């Protein structure tokens, strides 16, 4: 997620902090695995961010009557 191409690191403390923001309690024995999965997802986000898309590219839906 840092856009630098460096490996994404997520700590158990990160998981706790982020979970608290959405009212989620993650059991202590699950935090390490959740941190690992979150790091994998953030690595995917990093891969997305590394591609510069044309400014006009947008995900807005198209409405047709």
């Amino acid at each position, binding site marked *: 997620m840092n856009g630098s191409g460096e490996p994404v690191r997520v700590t158990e403390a990160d998981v706790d902090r982020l979970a608290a923001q*959405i009212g*989620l309690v993650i059991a202590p024995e*699950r935090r390490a695995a*959740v941190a690992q999965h*979150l790091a*994998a997802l953030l690595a995917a986000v990093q891969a*997305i961010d590394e591609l510069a898309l044309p400014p006009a*590219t947008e995900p807005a839906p198209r409405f047709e009557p």
Partner: protein
Amino acid sequence: MSDATTSALAIAAAVRAGKVRARDVVADALARIAQRDVALNAFTVVLSEHARADADTIDRRLAQGKDPGPLAGVPFAVKNLFDIAGVSTLAGSKINADRAPATRDATAVARLRASGAVLVGALNMDEYAYGFTTENTHYGPTRNPHDPSRIAGGSSGGSAAAVAAGLVPLTLGTDTNGSIRVPAALCGVFGLKPTFGRVSRAGVAPLAWSFDHVGPLARHVADLAAAFDAIAGPDTLDPSCATRSSPPCAGELERGADGLRIAILGGHFARLAADEALAAVARVGRALGVSREITLPEVHRARAAAQVITACEAAAIHLENLRSRAADFDPMTRDRLLAATLLPASAYLRAQRLRAWFRERVAEVFRDADVLLAPTTPWTAPAIGAPWMTRIDGVEVPTRGHLGAFTQPLSFIGLPVVSVPVITPGSLPVGVQLIGRPFEEASILRVASRLEAERVAISPVV
């Protein structure tokens, strides 16, 4: 009488001609399920009494001179995320077992039944369809009929295994990132993921709203086309269902691959794949006389976007249960869903931007080609309980997640794809994807039919 090798259309023809009773066909299917499914674990519920009653209705209609439908008497089963009236829709979970039974059939189930097919049960899957293996902790793993020590693939693992073993000739599955195509490939059957919006998802538990698809699995292309024709078309109960009509495909099959411009996908689709997967694509290419190779841009980033969108949508769907009863989720899915709840909204939207960009790039490729070929999975079925990581070509990849490496970038832009089975004697099956333009299912089914006629793609009962 029908046996495990009888095709759906052969059954329907025999029933319609009065050569066999639907009741006897269904009784044969129920007997096969009773005999073999203890070992395979493809079914989570068998609806014996309902099926016999429905078969009797078909027989009565025939006796009264009424048309029982083009799939008269064909036994079929559905992944257990489809609503079945009177049955709780599990979606592979323990949590949903608490829910009241569905009050009506999912649209696709209702349409198959209206065509005369007889529902005999519901099938095992990964919890909430979030997986490629059907190693379901709550209901046990579904075993691959080609080698019971191996996975059937997923998430529609029960749907593929039931067809491969000849328990039923036809099943329904769903596919978001490969969940029809991956198990079809690993179990050696045909699987069709139609264009997004072509088949209604009404009454189907979602994994990711913006690219869940419903489709059939079968051992014959004509059966696949007949089932697709029965379920496709507009449905006001599914707001994402396309309003355009769906011309029948079954009558198109005899045209074969004539006149279609076909190319093989290289680049991403040729990397990090085992030799047998690439050999299958080469074999299909040779049979079709195809040597042209095309490379799509930034496929690995498209796959990354598919992963992020799936995670965010699935997390949004299950957030309340993750807050209140996380311990009741399957450990195979729980930690991934928990992690997904923590992603920022900007990640989802940037993935959606890339999706829009990638869809346009692929549309440009289809100006110059009608059908594209690619491996369905990078390798054959792994062992049940296989190690989490696998090394291929010097790179460590997740054993389970990598199964979707070649399917994920295609379904998240909604393209229609058939996975055809390629089986070498003495080896486990692999699949080849035939990828078409949106709403051109007929083209890929025509190519599949040609490959079946030449016995390049076949699906024997095992």
